[in-house]
């Protein structure tokens, strides 16, 4: 693979986009698991499909279509979250379905032979073009810049929204910004892993990283590095076994996550039984009164 990597432009693009996607996912994924926004992010991700369809329908770059629609959906979901007291799962579920349906509708309305949508649904990292790469790099830079610039305010908002509001942090603004960043991340990741599989790359790396650190900055960093490891290994698996990259990456992530979870449970049991044993020993060692 390494010879071909030097040889072929499309492989270089694939590796670069995998790294960029992992960085955005590591940062934003850490935030969404801490703020319990996984469901909402799923909603935003799936509306991207509507945007892809719109892109084809209007004859513009599908990713640009996805960018506009996801930002629009992100603002909508953020507004719903803020304004209603009802269970937000319901409107998000509807956003989710409506977004996908819009995509199918636009594709159906587009004249000519329908394009192959599996690239966008399940990702095909080998189809990342030069132009895609420019867009992805720009969006990644925006995500990194915004989170770095507002790190403390963002952390305060994530930890305790009410307190942050009381001390004057503009939490509404930060929340909308965060949702836009989620939208941008979704767009960055579409080619790498696909709309449907995005949640794996968003949630698993920070969930694993959380076992090793109690610091938000390190959590973001570790998640990004784990993401890079996952995507590049997945890419290698997909290249060697000749299976679709999105599925290879998502399955590899799930496998590692599953193994780590099992190890964690076993470790916890071990610690617990050790504690019990020492307690027993204490009891035995104690002289009778």
């Amino acid at each position, binding site marked *: 693979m390494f010879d071909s990597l030097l040889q072929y432009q499309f492989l270089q693009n694939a590796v670069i986009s995998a790294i960029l996607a992992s960085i955005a996912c590591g940062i934003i994924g850490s935030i969404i698991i801490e703020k319990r926004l996984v469901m909402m992010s799923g909603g935003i991700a799936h509306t991207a499909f509507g945007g892809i369809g719109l892109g084809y329908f209007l004859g513009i770059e599908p990713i640009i279509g996805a960018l506009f629609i996801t930002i629009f959906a992100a603002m909508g979901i953020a507004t719903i979250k803020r304004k209603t007291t009802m269970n937000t799962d319901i409107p998000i579920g509807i956003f989710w379905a409506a977004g996908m349906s819009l995509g199918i509708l636009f594709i159906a309305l587009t004249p000519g032979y329908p394009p192959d949508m599996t690239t966008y649904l399940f990702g095909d990292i080998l189809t990342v073009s030069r132009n895609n790469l420019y867009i992805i790099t720009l969006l990644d830079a925006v995500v990194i810049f915004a989170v770095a610039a507002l790190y403390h305010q963002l952390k305060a908002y994530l930890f305790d929204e009410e307190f942050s509001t009381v001390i004057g*942090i503009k939490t509404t603004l930060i929340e909308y910004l965060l949702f836009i960043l989620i939208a941008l991340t979704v767009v960055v990741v579409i080619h790498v892993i696909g709309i449907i599989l995005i949640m794996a790359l968003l949630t698993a790396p920070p969930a694993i990283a959380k076992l090793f650190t109690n610091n938000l900055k390190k959590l973001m960093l570790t998640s990004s590095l784990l993401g890079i490891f996952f995507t590049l290994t997945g890419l290698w698996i997909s290249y060697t076994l000749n299976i679709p990259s999105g599925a290879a990456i998502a399955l590899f992530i799930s496998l590692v996550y599953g193994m780590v979870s099992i190890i964690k449970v076993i470790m916890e049991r071990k610690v617990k039984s050790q504690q019990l044993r020492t307690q027993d020993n204490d009891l035995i060692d104690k002289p009778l009164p």
Partner: protein
Amino acid sequence: MNRKRVNEKLEYVINVSNLTVYYQKMCALSNVNLKVRDREFLGIIGPNGGGKSTLLKAILGLISPSSGKIEVYGKPPAKALGLMGYVPQFTKFHRDFPITVEETVLMGRLSGKTPLFHKYSKTDMDIAHSLMDKLEIYSLRKRQIGQLSGGQLQRTLIARALTVEPKILILDEPTASLDAESKSHIYSILEKLNRDMTIIMVTHDMNAISSHVHSLACLNKKLFYHGHSELSDDIIHQIYGCPIDLIAHGVPHRVLKEHGSNGGNSLV
């Protein structure tokens, strides 16, 4: 702590007039009038769902009233940011959030004017450290908040509220689900703080009302009583919910003692 007698020219730091709050169609607070003096230690009691937290949030500017007016130091709550330190219910936190005690306390130094790419200054650090020292959590400063006991987390949250350098400290059930020792520790801290600042506290703890709090507001959608913390029998009978609480908890007799010779009582 001695309380000054009623004075006609008293300054009110918080002035709530005719406050009504609706959540959609449900009325949470109806026509509440409440005035809080400088350095008062006000306890707010009432049944669950009686609007205690709603009143706090309205004063803090977290929810906007359906009607009525709130003034904090003569300003609407949104303009009084930085005058109030807020200690939310600690039981509501996600204890697994990746943040240390020190980071939590420092958070109080942020504000709406905090610039992009902010770094905490030496002053911020000094303020946070001296408060952590005061509240006896300095040695825990590198711990993740999930590794704290309830009392330690509560003191962390109080320290955080104090780094704002507020004039009013507002606490929502600061001693809920704490053991007796942690409770009395928290109260002794609050009593010391009360020398320099006004304290408003929502509580279910009747012992605290009798021994630490100066004045009492009893809330069940309406404000049933506001005045001296020693309730008379008459008033207790008016408050649905509250008397059950009082009697059920076997409150020290002192709370129920007849009082009113000093004119400090004022029914609102």
